């Protein structure tokens, strides 16, 4: 089991009702964590919509998670 800090922005913040949460998970990669949280929150995003940041850097979806990681799922960006 791993303790992680998740931060939500924009549409994911609206979908979860949280700006951040700390949770304990069996998920080994960011991708499996994403599916776990999709079950929990029923958000409308799929894996292809989302990029993943771990500790404030973009990382591939199969990145293994470590205790204390800050994880952010990045919905489609719209800057500029």
């Amino acid at each position, binding site marked *: 089991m791993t303790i992680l800090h998740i931060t939500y*922005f924009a549409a994911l913040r609206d979908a979860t009702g949280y700006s951040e949460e700390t949770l304990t998970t069996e998920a080994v990669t960011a991708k499996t964590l994403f599916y776990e949280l999709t079950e929990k929150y029923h958000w409308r995003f799929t894996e292809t919509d989302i990029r993943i940041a771990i500790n404030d850097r973009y990382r591939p979806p199969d990145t293994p998670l470590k205790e204390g990681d800050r994880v952010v799922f990045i919905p489609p960006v719209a800057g*500029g």
Partner: protein
Amino acid sequence: MLFQLTDRPIEPLISSLHPHTGAIVTFEGRVRAVNDDREVSSLEYVAYPELALHEGHAIVSEALERFDIIGACAIHRTGHLVINDIAVWIMSAAVHRKEAFEATEYIINTIKARVPIWKKEHYSDGETTWVRCDHCANPHDHSKQSKASLKRKRYATR
């Protein structure tokens, strides 16, 4: 400062120039009153600051490596913006103009693709929505305003 986020109005100001600068190309992204045929009353930009600053800095650094330019920078606004406000301001300076155009276009294209900033549109009917992207992800047709109607009003300098 290669990339900045600010919640204050952007006032472009080019203060200190390398004496070899012959060309400066700036891009201003402005808040439009209409997006996808809906009347927009205002916008909210939200950033993931730690990653946005990292990516923004990386993008401007990449432009400095890829193009033969003297300098470049970009500023992105956050918070609540109204019609005509500057959302993003980008500048590239070069000896010759071709490289300044290329670098500025590269920076805005790459910011739009990579920097974690989100935009909530507020419509005149009171609805709001997080925009997936300006011009690609919406399923319905991007029917354009007719050129004639756009040209009815011109704007002037000074």
